[in-house]
């Protein structure tokens, strides 16, 4: 990246996972100047996170090779922080703000993990499921460590499988959804042989451990350097010892940037047409923000979005297939009401500001919660506690607060001054 604080491009893409990479390659193929930005040091997002491309599945390796040969400008370690006007994106890198002027914007911001509070969820060595997976891919060693994988959704299987392959002892994989619904969902995968084969491979990866449906973590307590995990299936309660816990309750589309851009959101997902165009004509969206449907769908949507953002007439059914898959996923792994009873009044809900559940009044709106307790006002800007509170207290999503990522105080003022100087 050059030192210039204003970059010009035809297509700006935020997020370098499968959707963003495919969009960048497709936009370049149409001849558009293309710029791809991500907070990580390397392209790949979460699913194609890697230290060495040789570790990647063939499709990931191929797309990352295509990206590096595409001529798209790659800006790593940068966070999108604001969209102050149409055609203008402000981003931050190493504490410095810069402006990207774009004709089309592709939002490929992926998803975050839904973490739910229970006593002990803030202890060190209690991770998200995707979280422990990300750390493993980033080089963490789990050899000979005991792990309990818990929560909900199809992510539990591949993560348990890759932890086992890295030498961890999987004590248990606990899925909160009832077996009937999980197996019905798996059964429906007969129409999707690729996904079915994947699921079978993952299950084989940790075949010595139990995969228990209708089971969830009640609390975690420290015991020396280990953890004592209390589990239940709703009838029986028992405890188990482990070194690490990975617990996450599915993925939540990251629609913050899209909300900021003014895009219509339906049922928590960004609404797009057959060319991945959002309700804002110059803004496109691809991948998990349109509905949780995995990497293959993200690539298909990214190709459409990139081409369309570059001005090509290209349409397809990728987004509507993704929405149907996401709806099936939601039904199969719907969260059981029992999980609302896990946190006690002293359990911290907002990890940034240490706000406990007892401090939050019943029936408060998302806005009241922020104003009265500062929950959601810390550096993560509610990315962790907001999805949790939406479930625990049925609060709706609040308006997006700026900046999207914490920026040094001087930075925004600095930037505003420079803009004034320009005009």
């Amino acid at each position, binding site marked *: 990246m050059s030192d210039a604080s204003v970059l010009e491009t035809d297509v700006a893409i935020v997020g370098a996972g499968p959707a963003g990479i495919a969009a960048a390659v497709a936009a370049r193929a149409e001849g558009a100047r293309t710029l791809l930005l991500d907070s990580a040091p390397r392209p790949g997002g979460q699913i194609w996170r890697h230290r060495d491309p040789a570790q990647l599945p063939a499709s990931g390796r191929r797309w990352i090779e295509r990206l590096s040969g595409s001529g798209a400008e790659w800006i790593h370690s940068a966070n999108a922080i604001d969209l102050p006007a149409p055609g203008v994106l402000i981003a931050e890198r190493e504490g410095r703000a810069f402006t990207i002027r774009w004709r089309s914007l592709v939002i490929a911001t992926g998803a975050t993990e839904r973490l739910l509070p229970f006593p002990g969820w803030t202890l060190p060595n209690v991770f998200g499921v*995707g979280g422990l997976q990300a750390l493993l891919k980033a080089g963490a060693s789990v050899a000979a460590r005991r792990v309990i994988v818990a929560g909900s959704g199809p992510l539990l299987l591949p993560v348990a499988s890759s932890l086992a392959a890295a030498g961890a002892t999987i004590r248990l994989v606990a899925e909160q959804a009832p077996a009937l619904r999980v197996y019905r969902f798996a059964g429906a995968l007969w129409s999707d042989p690729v996904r079915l084969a994947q699921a079978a491979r993952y299950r084989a990866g940790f075949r010595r451990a139990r995969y228990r449906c209708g089971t969830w973590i009640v609390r975690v307590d420290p015991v020396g350097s280990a953890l004592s995990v209390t589990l239940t299936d709703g009838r029986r309660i028992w405890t188990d010892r482990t070194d690490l816990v990975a617990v996450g309750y599915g993925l939540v589309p990251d629609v913050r940037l899209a909300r900021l851009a003014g895009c219509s959101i339906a049922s928590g997902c960004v609404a797009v047409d057959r060319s991945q165009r959002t309700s804002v004509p110059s803004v496109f969206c691809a991948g998990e923000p349109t509905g949780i449907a995995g990497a293959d769908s993200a690539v298909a949507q990214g190709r459409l979005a990139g081409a369309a953002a570059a001005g090509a007439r290209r349409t397809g059914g990728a987004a509507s297939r993704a929405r149907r898959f996401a709806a099936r996923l939601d039904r199969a792994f719907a969260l059981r009401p029992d999980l609302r009873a896990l946190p006690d009044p002293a359990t911290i809900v907002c990890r940034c500001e*240490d706000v406990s559940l007892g401090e939050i009044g019943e029936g408060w709106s998302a806005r009241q919660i922020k104003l009265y307790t500062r929950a959601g006002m810390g550096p993560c800007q509610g990315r962790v506690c907001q999805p949790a509170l939406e479930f625990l207290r049925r609060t709706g999503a609040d308006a997006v607060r700026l900046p999207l990522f914490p920026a040094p105080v001087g930075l925004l003022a600095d930037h505003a001054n420079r803009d004034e100087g320009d005009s």
Partner: protein
Amino acid sequence: MPELVEFTVDGVTCRAAPGTSLAAAMLDAGVTAFRRSRTGEPRGPVCGMGICFECRVAIDGIAHRRACLEPVRAGMTVRTGE
């Protein structure tokens, strides 16, 4: 086997394979408390992808860096507990 890079955490020398994220390298070195919360609780990495901000440490004197987003570099000085 690539040569390991050396870095320090609170003055203690640690080693990690190049390309490892600082968060992963610190966990491997046995560090679990990366920061102290507002009420003094120890906290460590959770999301591994730059969202939760629980793995914040000071790197080479610069506060509030997310260890999960930083590749470990030779000579890095890391301070926990901020």
